[in-house]
């Protein structure tokens, strides 16, 4: 099986370590994944803001970059959801059926690990108290269910505590975070309050964009809670700790 990693534009430019974690994790599990260097973005920012014409060339770049791979793995529920559910809208707009062709081959990281590789114990070690936020698109758009939690429960040393109102949106929402900045912040503040209430040192989630938002609030509040991507936690080992 030829596996490609879609690092996502936000990880590529802002959180490169999360991209590295995905590769380290996959290698440890015996998967020799590739980084198609022609990749850029899934086009979700354009689609979700209503700029469908602008999304067309971005999706075209995406489809070309990942042509020839059997599986596309991504550390983002949101971007996986965009490929699976929105590329068809762009394809229809452009009258190019090919633009929807990546949809059946894309997997969010926890889906790939649990459904394709069939593992829940990825041999990780992370001796911290952490809580998990199931991002909306992972939870409702993709329906990953408890797969991320099954992976986290097998991490040695990890003290996983439940997050109150976990399924409620953090308020990021892409351009919503700036178009409706105050409502976005109000939602994020409630999420941050729930996170603090758990007493966790680390908030884990499967989307860097949501973590950027919640982490930004937690930092401004001087809460001392750090945010980490699921991939970064799963890639951690005893040797590094």
């Amino acid at each position, binding site marked *: 099986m030829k596996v490609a990693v879609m690092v996502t*534009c936000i990880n*590529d*430019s*802002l959180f*490169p370590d999360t*991209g*590295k974690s995905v*590769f380290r994790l996959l*290698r440890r599990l015996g998967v020799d994944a590739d980084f198609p*260097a*022609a990749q*850029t*973005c899934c*086009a979700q920012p354009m689609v*979700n*803001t*209503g*700029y*469908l014409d*602008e*999304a067309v*060339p*971005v999706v075209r*770049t995406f489809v070309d*970059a990942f042509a020839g791979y059997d599986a596309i793995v991504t550390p983002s529920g949101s971007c996986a959801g965009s490929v699976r559910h929105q590329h068809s*809208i762009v394809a229809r707009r452009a009258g190019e059926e090919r633009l929807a062709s990546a949809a059946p081959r894309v997997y969010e990281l926890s889906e790939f690990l649990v459904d394709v590789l069939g593992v829940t114990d990825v041999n990780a070690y992370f001796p911290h108290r952490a809580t998990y936020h199931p991002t*909306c*698109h992972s*939870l*409702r*758009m993709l329906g990953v269910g408890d797969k991320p939690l099954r992976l986290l429960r097998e991490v040695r040393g990890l003290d996983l505590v439940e997050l109150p109102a976990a399924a409620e*949106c953090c*308020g*990021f*929402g*892409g*351009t*919503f*975070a*700036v*178009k*409706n*900045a*105050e*409502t*976005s912040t*109000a*939602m994020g503040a409630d999420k941050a309050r729930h996170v603090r209430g758990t007493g966790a040192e680390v908030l884990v989630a499967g989307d860097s964009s949501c973590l*950027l*938002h919640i*982490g*930004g*609030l*937690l*930092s*401004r509040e001087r*809460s001392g809670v*750090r*945010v*980490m991507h699921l991939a970064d936690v799963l890639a951690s080992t005893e040797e590094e700790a």
Partner: protein
Amino acid sequence: MPAFPEAARKALADTQLRRNLAHATGTIRAKREAVVGEVAEWEELRLAGAAIKDNTLRRLDEHLLTLEASLQARGATVHWARDAAEACEIVARIAHGHGIDEVVKVKSMATQEIGLNEALAAHGVTAWETDLAELIVQLGDDLPSHILVPAIHRNRAEIREVFRRGMADAGRPAPPGLSDEPAELAAAARLHLREKFLRARMAVSGANFAVAESGTLVVVESEGNGRMCLTLPEVLVSVVGIEKVVPTFADLDVFLQLLPRSSTGERMNPYTSTWSGVTPGDGPQEMHVVLLDNGRTRALADEVGRQALRCIRCSACLNVCPVYERTGGHAYGSVYPGPIGAILNPLLKGVGVDEQTDSLPYASTLCGACFEACPVRIDIPEVLVHLRAKVVDAHREGVPKPEAVAMKSAAWLLSDARRLGLAERGLGVANRALTRFGRRVLPGGRRALGRLPWPGSLWTNARDLPAPPRESFRAWWRKGGRP
């Protein structure tokens, strides 16, 4: 009415409002979840509800003609209204024809949508709301903020004040020494309303459903006030959106299971009233039905958006929406607030008409909670994205907004990996500059940016931003970096 972000600002600053809303939506959410959980075949019921509505909408014209014929056969008069003005005119004409200057009203979204009370007032006819929550809104000279619980933004202390101040001007005053105990408040409303039920010669209602084959209208309610209006006065006028039609009586079976569980979190609603035309010597002796379009055929013509016409006004989407919970209903500037309002208003009015309507499809994070809760499976996030595209397309001519420029540039950058790589190299340069000046540190040790000038301030007013990394993933990979 200001655009959503601005209208929301006021609500976000109102601590009492936010407390009232969080409490009320939280309570009703838990109730709904519990009773929905009891039904093993809930998903099948949702699918059935959606299918009945879709099939009916596909041949809406035929079903409406059947409905008209059945109603007429039972002695009702049918009127067709293209828009709000026509509908209001028809109701006012009927009142004038009988020399009537006051009417009692059953809680109805359609009559609110068309601004019937205000229109009747202009014709010298006073309309009294008899639903308890609508009465609170009316007496308080307020606007409804929720489909099912129009006074959800008020707590009982506020309601006591509204009654004490407003009841005397509208009829029987509030009893002296009225407390804010729910039972006392309800008793005061009962006395106040009873006068009006017994005096009124005409009632105005909407309908939750209109059965085509039998010419039957249906109202589902919790208080029995609606039933008083539907049985006591001589003349009854029902204003019914054309999407309310269902073909057969058997179809009601599905909706009478879906609606109460989704809306009030009850297994069954307390009062289900059905009426078919006129029965001599019993109930209203003259019955009018106003079939209302008011943008519904426009929504029907929208391939993606037409699913919004499945809506049975249960308000489950409002109660689960995290945006609604913080901003309340007034921010949506319409009688249809929350997620359904964010799609229904632009669908009924059309996009590109005014800034307020165009702001509504963006009043969502697309978190999907509304779709999950919707008993007729309206994919609200899908319609929101679809409408955003229509909003953008409506403004493609003329001088582009900063947002359009930003999106076009982003798309240009993201259409080519080399361009993105170059931009990321710029971020690396910024990193080196910021490492020198940036003082803030994120938990975990990474350097952060504090407050930035506009437009960065939209993010950094409340949130720190990680400083860009020294090197992008792509640059690291190109150098042969391997984990």
